């Protein structure tokens, strides 16, 4: 293999699994160290810069970082990254001094944000410090988009939501609420310098089965129903409720029903339990509240008596793997009838922009999604950019933040007459040695063997009575600091300098995870087999040195390295050093003047 180019930003970025997995590339280990040190405000601001909504995400994020956490590979359970984010948000001090300065003299460019959800808000935050005038339009009476309308208060309390939404709005956004956008053409006539479409995926899917029309008044679309609960139009639900669907919306629907007085709530999913789209913890929370989840039951028919809903007939199927894909085939058991008075339909949603005329230069693909450049998020109309769920279909809040950063860069470049694709700032990497002296490192290298800490919950009977009572209480400072210790500091990299190595084997002998091997070079496939411990995880890179004095090379398997620093600690010549990698992800702040 060729020597690894450790100065390419992507190499060490990928070693920080959580940061690599995060769409917004939040520097997770850095803020976790801040939490461990009790510096909550700084920890919060590191998050705020990357993902814009730390308090909201600390409660509601889909957490792509957690399954990626190295700890999953070394000891099964990941660091509770999301909950730690909340610790920073819950315990932070005054952030005023850390906020970017918004100039009072504007730069003369006007930007329209369509929709007031996370994507639009994040674009506003990125652009405001550069003197842009920002006008934001939304059909709802308040900002926040789906974070407000679809996430129930027992998961995300209103004050947490409002704090982070208002922070951005108050930076100088001209917000127009209760404004239903009916025509993109009309918007274009308002002659803004750029438009950002962040209107989400507001149309919930429906099921056209026998009986559907007759029972229309007993069926609600999940996201619409949650929205009417959020804005106070619905405050109760009675009788027996069936929630159809297996995603997070389904989980929110069933738990909300339970709190609004349903006699019984049942979730029925057409697929198997493991492949449900809902996050693991959402399923657990619903089940622990006594809500049954019935799997492998696709619905067949709505049963009614003169328009009065009686229940639903479901088919019994089982998953079978065919050509590597799951298929559901009938089990042969008789169909089942489940009685109900109301159905909440939570089987997915679509981005849907009927208000965008198809003849104004924005092209759509065959799925009716706008055709976008994946990097710049620019549509085929040079002034119009998309982000969040309206860009590539339903994702989540963290993706909305990630899109927003890219779109903001594109808008900034476009407004300066530059090319949004070719003139983007590059990624960068700084490596900073953490050695402070003999056996002294500026990070807490010692491995903490604690198991993942359990987050306390509110009293069950109290939280099931009141939709406003938050279920998860979050870690307190002590639990938070203990959970923070579990982080392996994957951003403190093992950096190897060939010319200093005397090949004494000290690092090989001390490495607790058998990551290091000195061997003759070979092709990757062969090399992976004859390392001290075989490197079976092909997703994790091998770090290969240049030729050493004896003609051998050093090969390090990054897979399960604990970043404990023992190799550097036992190296007599400092050929190994622990260096913190700071990955510079381009964001509008990269242009700071």
């Amino acid at each position, binding site marked *: 293999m060729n020597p690894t180019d450790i100065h390419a930003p992507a190499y060490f970025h990928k070693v920080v699994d959580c940061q690599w997995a995060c769409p917004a590339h939040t520097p997770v280990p850095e803020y976790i160290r801040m939490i461990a040190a009790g510096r909550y405000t700084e920890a919060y601001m590191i998050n705020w810069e990357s993902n814009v909504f730390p308090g909201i995400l600390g409660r509601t994020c889909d957490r792509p970082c957690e399954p990626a956490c190295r700890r999953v*590979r*070394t*000891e099964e359970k990941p660091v509770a990254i999301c909950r730690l984010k909340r610790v920073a948000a819950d315990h932070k001090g005054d952030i005023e001094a850390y906020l970017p300065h918004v100039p009072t003299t504007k730069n003369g460019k006007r930007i329209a944000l369509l929709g007031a959800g996370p994507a639009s808000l994040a674009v506003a935050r990125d652009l405001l410090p550069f003197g842009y005038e920002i006008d934001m339009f939304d059909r709802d009476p308040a900002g926040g988009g789906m974070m407000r309308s679809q996430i129930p208060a027992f998961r995300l309390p209103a004050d947490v939501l409002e704090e982070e939404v208002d922070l951005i709005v108050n930076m100088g956004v001209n917000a127009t609420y209760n404004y239903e956008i009916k025509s993109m053409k009309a918007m274009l006539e308002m002659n803004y310098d750029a438009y950002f479409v962040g209107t989400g995926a507001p149309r919930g899917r429906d099921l056209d089965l026998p009986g559907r029309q007759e029972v229309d008044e007993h069926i609600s679309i999940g996201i619409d129903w949650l929205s009417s609960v959020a804005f106070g139009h619905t405050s109760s639900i009675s009788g027996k409720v069936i929630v159809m669907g297996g995603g997070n919306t389904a989980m929110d629907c069933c738990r909300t029903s339970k709190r609004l007085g349903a006699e019984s709530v049942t979730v029925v999913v057409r697929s198997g339990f493991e492949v449900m789209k809902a996050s693991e913890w959402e399923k657990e929370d619903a089940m622990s509240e006594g809500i049954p989840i019935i799997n492998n039951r696709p619905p067949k028919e709505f049963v009614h008596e003169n328009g009065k809903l009686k229940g639903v007939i479901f088919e019994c199927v089982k998953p079978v793997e065919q050509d590597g894909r799951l298929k559901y085939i009938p089990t042969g058991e008789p169909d089942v009838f489940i009685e109900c008075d109301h159905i909440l339909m939570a089987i997915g949603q679509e981005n849907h922009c009927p208000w965008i005329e198809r003849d104004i230069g924005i092209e759509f693909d065959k799925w009716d999604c706008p055709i976008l450049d994946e990097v710049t998020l620019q549509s085929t109309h040079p002034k119009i950019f998309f982000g969040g769920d309206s860009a590539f279909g339903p994702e989540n809040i963290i993706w909305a933040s990630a899109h927003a950063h890219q779109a903001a860069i594109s808008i900034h470049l476009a407004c300066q007459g530059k090319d949004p694709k070719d003139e983007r700032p590059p990624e960068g990497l700084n490596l900073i040695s953490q050695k402070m002296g003999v*056996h002294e490192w500026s990070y807490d*290298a*010692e*491995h903490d*063997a604690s198991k993942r800490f359990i987050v306390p919950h509110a009293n069950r009977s109290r939280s099931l009575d009141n939709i406003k009572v938050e279920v998860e209480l979050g870690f307190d400072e002590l639990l938070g600091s203990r959970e923070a210790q579990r982080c392996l500091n994957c951003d403190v990299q093992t950096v190897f300098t060939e010319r200093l190595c*005397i*090949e*004494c*084997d*000290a690092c*090989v*002998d*001390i490495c*607790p*995870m*058998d*990551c290091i091997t000195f061997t003759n070079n070979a092709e990757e496939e062969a090399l992976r087999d004859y390392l001290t*411990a*075989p490197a*079976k995880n092909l997703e994790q890179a091998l770090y290969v040195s240049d030729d050493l*004095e*004896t003609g051998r090379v050093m090969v390090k398997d990054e897979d*399960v390295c*604990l970043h*404990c*620093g*023992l190799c550097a*600690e*036992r*190296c*007599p*010549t400092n050929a190994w050093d622990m260096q913190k990698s700071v990955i510079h992800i381009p964001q509008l702040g990269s242009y700071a003047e």
Partner: protein
Amino acid sequence: MTFVPKPKVRHPLLEFNEIGLTRRDYEGSVSTLCAGCGHDSVSAAITIACNEMSIPPHRFAKLSGIGCSSKTPSYFLGASHGFNSVHGRMPSVATGANLANHELYCIGVSGDGDSASIGVGQFAHIVRRKVNMLYIVDNNGTYGLTKGQFSATNDRGSTSKRGVPNLYSPIDLVSMALQVGASFVARSFSGDKTQLVPLIKAALMHKGFAFIDVISPCVMFNNHNGSTKSYQYVREHTAAMVDAQLITPHEEISVEYAPGTVKEVDMPDGSLLRLRKLSETYDPHDRIGALNHVQRAQEQGDVITGLLYVDPIASDLHEVLETTSTPLNQLVESDLCPGSEALDGVNASFR
């Protein structure tokens, strides 16, 4: 030394040996020696060998004297027996331990100071007595613990860190062991575990006195240009004579060598010791030939390594003394004082 404890967590694919342990179970506490010390690699080699042989850790007795080398038994086989004795007197303690319980695998770790200076007399006599043990000398040619004076194994003309040459002739422990009757003599290098680990395994299985002289560079005081025991010098001047490989009864014999270069020796436990000659002229069963070869190489500044001599039908101290097969420490009062009738019988035999 290192203050960060070695994490207990291990590689998820680390292999279990036949008794359900991993290599990590054969480790000791974290080394307090200087970073990069060759001795730590020797300790690691012992850990690997003992794990691969699937011997329970409590079946080992680790014995040592004084010096950097003699500290190392703390750093391997944490769950075994150990005795850190007086300077140069480890052989006496090892003899006692082996006499009391011949079922233990005795590993003595000593250094060039401990064995070639203060303990040179004890060393000679434990070899003569054929105590069944593995005796390792971590040989770095310097007194590291007292800041780098020349030791008795330092080659004449080799220089100190400051460039002062050594004026005296070295003691060669390999030649000495050959001369006074060791039945297993090897030399290796701490930086070459592919050679050292099989040697340790073969030595542990050898019945009789097994000696391995391991060149183990002192990174602090004897790893400079004028040294003949530095990582670089040893790598450049090493010539392996014979490779040893121990094949236990249940292991498959997989590697095939060119005919004529391989010799196989049956070991007492049923395993097979396979010797692969790397030099045409070298015979690992010829004690006097080996002695000559070692001395000549020494004169030319070469370090010859590998299994230099093995006597396949060696005996040990217990055989010489015709002791009972029950370990002495397991004999109970009725065995030791069988009563007046037995005494009468013994007395009668002298009449």
